[in-house]
């Protein structure tokens, strides 16, 4: 390669531009037509590009379709349940809708060059893999006053595919007992409430508060989001709520597979963002997982739902070109414009920026994370995000930071506290009153950090002091987890008098009569 000379002296001293593609401008696949697009230094024509993308889609999905792997190299595809597609209106999920329809639900089998169905009409490929398909969309406008409701626009898109049933959900369903009863079959699931500090944020101890009633689901979700300490926490909470709503809807509807339209680019961003928020333990689940609600003791294990991202080998650029050349309608996702960016948005800006100088960044991130697995066996399922939970999280947090001198493990070190700081030290034995019920041991590291980790920037949207408690999503209080002691049944505790009074208050004719 020639080196740079002095442009002032030599006419052709400028470094020749590095070529964007390998050897030829012709399509590397058919070698007949001139190329129309360069994907990672490979040139493709328009006609060859679409089959390439569809092949990547099928290679990512089809190995997971059958319940058992089997021995055949090309088995007949037959899923054990229905199909559910998570649809956001974005580029990836719009393409997913189109590809799933064309590949598995359209009446027309794929044709060969002569126009006949490839493999013949009776070819196993052309038989239906899933009996039916639902498309789940979660509308988030309820969480943000003034935001436009896009449900009907989304319905219009889904109706273009007559084989699909549209199942619209709302983000506030996460706080709606009637929705929970429908998907879980549980009646009267108690709502879990957490205490708030004077600043209106969830306290570090995650203390469970007395039951409060009278909030609509919309009021409940707005109160919940306003009690979160950072913009990162709000983004993460919305993501978790959306995912768990769809998981439960898919599972209760008899689906065996749930597909999301995350492209390679958005998958890499979500992996790096998850790691940055302490979600390294569940990195496998971020890629692909087999999920089931935790079964109540004595009941049959639930059917497993396979959560797959079949566009995980397709970059955002390929998705955009596919949508353009195949006339796929894309509504787009509503992006919140905020002055303070959370970790998810920062990660997206960073990865997209780095990809310009280092083009293999997104694929490297995804490939690297595919080689990782959690170190220890899980100690249960996080109540909030429904993902596997690592053990001894609070012990780890307590080990690396000293937040209070009353911690037992500091007993040996207290002698070294400087003299000026010893006068108000409380070294008395802990009170005999049992500690308040806390959610701490029932959450994964990432969810605990979401609820408690603060920033100096702050994100408080409503005035502090309006409410002293905040609700949590309805599934947190699911009685199916009563064995671990959060909501009675398992652990016994003395009920304080005030809590008894709260329960019977509506039935007391006159409080004074009772006291007399």
């Amino acid at each position, binding site marked *: 390669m020639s080196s740079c000379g002095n442009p002032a002296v030599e006419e052709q001293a400028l470094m020749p531009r590095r070529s964007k593609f390998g050897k030829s401008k012709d399509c590397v696949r058919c070698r007949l037509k001139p190329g129309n697009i360069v994907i990672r230094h490979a040139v493709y024509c328009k006609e060859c590009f679409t089959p390439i993308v569809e092949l990547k889609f099928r290679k990512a999905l089809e190995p997971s379709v059958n319940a058992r792997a089997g021995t055949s190299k090309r088995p007949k595809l037959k899923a054990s349940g229905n199909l559910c597609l998570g649809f956001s209106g974005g580029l990836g999920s719009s393409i997913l809708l189109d590809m799933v329809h064309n590949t598995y639900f359209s009446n027309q089998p794929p044709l060969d060059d002569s126009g006949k169905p490839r493999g013949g009409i009776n070819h196993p490929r052309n038989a239906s893999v899933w009996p039916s398909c639902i498309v789940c969309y979660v509308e988030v406008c309820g969480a943000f006053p003034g935001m436009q409701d896009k449900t009907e626009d989304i319905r219009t898109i889904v109706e273009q595919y007559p084989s699909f049933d549209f199942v619209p959900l709302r983000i506030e369903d996460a706080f709606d007992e009637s929705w929970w009863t429908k998907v879980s079959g549980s009646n009267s699931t108690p709502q879990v409430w957490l205490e708030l500090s004077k600043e209106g944020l969830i306290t570090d101890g995650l203390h469970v508060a007395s039951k409060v009633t009278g909030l609509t689901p919309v009021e409940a979700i707005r109160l919940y989001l306003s009690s979160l300490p950072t913009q990162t926490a709000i983004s993460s909470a919305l993501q978790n709520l959306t995912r768990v709503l769809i998981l439960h809807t898919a599972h209760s509807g008899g689906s065996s597979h749930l597909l999301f339209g995350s492209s390679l680019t958005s998958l890499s961003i979500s992996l790096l963002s998850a790691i*940055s*928020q302490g979600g390294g333990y569940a990195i496998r689940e971020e890629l692909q997982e087999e999920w089931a609600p935790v079964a109540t003791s004595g009941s049959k294990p639930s059917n497993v739902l396979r959560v797959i991202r079949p566009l995980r080998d397709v970059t955002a650029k390929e998705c955009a070109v596919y949508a353009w050349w195949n006339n796929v309608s894309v509504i787009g996702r509503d992006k919140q414009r905020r002055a303070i960016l959370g970790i998810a948005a920062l990660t997206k800006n*960073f990865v997209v920026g780095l990809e310009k100088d280092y083009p293999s960044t997104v694929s490297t991130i995804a*490939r690297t994370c595919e*080689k990782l697995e*959690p*170190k220890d066996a899980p100690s249960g399922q996080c109540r909030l995000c429904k993902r596997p939970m*690592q053990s001894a999280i609070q012990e780890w947090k307590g080990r690396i930071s000293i937040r209070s001198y009353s911690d037992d493990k500091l007993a040996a070190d207290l002698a070294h506290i400087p003299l000026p700081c010893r006068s108000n030290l409380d070294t008395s034995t802990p009170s005999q009153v049992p500690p308040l019920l806390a959610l701490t041991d029932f959450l994964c*590291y990432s969810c605990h950090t979401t609820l408690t*980790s603060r920033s100096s920037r702050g994100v408080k949207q409503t005035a502090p002091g309006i409410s002293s408690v905040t609700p949590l999503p309805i599934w947190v209080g699911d009685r199916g987890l009563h064995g671990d002691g959060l909501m009675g049944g398992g652990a016994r505790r003395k009920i304080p008098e005030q809590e008894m009074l709260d329960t019977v208050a509506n039935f007391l004719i006159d409080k004074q009569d009772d006291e007399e």
Partner: protein
Amino acid sequence: MAPTSCSLCRDAKAILKRPKTGQQICKDCFFFVFETEVHHTITESELFKPGDRVAIGASGGKDSTVLAYVMKTLNERYNYGLDLFLLSIDEGITGYRDDSLETVKRNQQQYDMPLKILSYDELYGWTMDAIVEQIGKKNNCTFCGVFRRQALDRGAASLNVDHIVTGHNADDIAETVLMNIMRGDIARLGRCTLICTQGEDTIKRSKPFKYAYEKEIVMYAYFKKLDYFSTECIYSPDAYRGHARTFLKDLEAARPSAIIDIIHSGEAFEVKEEIKAAQKAQQTCKRCGYMSSNDLCKACTLLEGLERGMASSVITDRARKKMDAIGPAPDNIRTIPLFRSTPTIAVELPSQS
């Protein structure tokens, strides 16, 4: 507005906000919690035993200066029973390393510790200035990092120490986790969050500041009025690590716990067994005897590249094979002397009868 009391002792006036926890505390409590957290990191990982000879990797920067101070303080306070040494590496960067070495020499006087300085020039025959002159400003951190690692081991072996401690802090570890994911360095990703690492033939190496925030180290040095050299390496702005560092700073601004959260993520996962099995087994370098995953260790490979005028081409394994295809190394090139770590000789005590 009334002054805020310290969140810990509830007595003195709070004069700083801890970057790690956000608590508002007084100066004395800050010194106490900072030092005690490092002490807990050391004891819970069982890093040392009484009688150990420990070399502190000292660059004259804030991390190693504070590390030397804190190690001396904790050694006396908790009777670790350690013999502490300062070990410094002169990479030969004019205007940067010569100034920071003066700081290390001052540290030696202030902390009353023996000091050994080892230079790239005496060990390899090349300074970083000469290397950068040959290869430019891309990939020079690869050379420096590889050379420094071996230099530290060689310096420690000459001091006959059992253990090397370095001032890598929480920010460094978090940056390394992010960087290894972005670059796909699965081998390093699997071990970068370990607090203590040891190869078959190399000296144990630990990071007592693994959970200490960089900002808190600076704060500690400021309030303790510790003497350190504050300029960044002049060749670092073009390094790939700079991207990870900028990203991490943005994450920290969005949520200060992000640094610890990334370290927690790194500790929570490991490389899958089938991937580990496919990785190259460790062997010994045929030229200098240091640990290596190929016939020649990376330092010998890089040095050969420099000597043959093909330094830029030996960064990757593929480039190395290309160089080998050209022909064997000439006999008259400079090579790294044979490495021998301190041999472990079992001493049998004489019987009492």
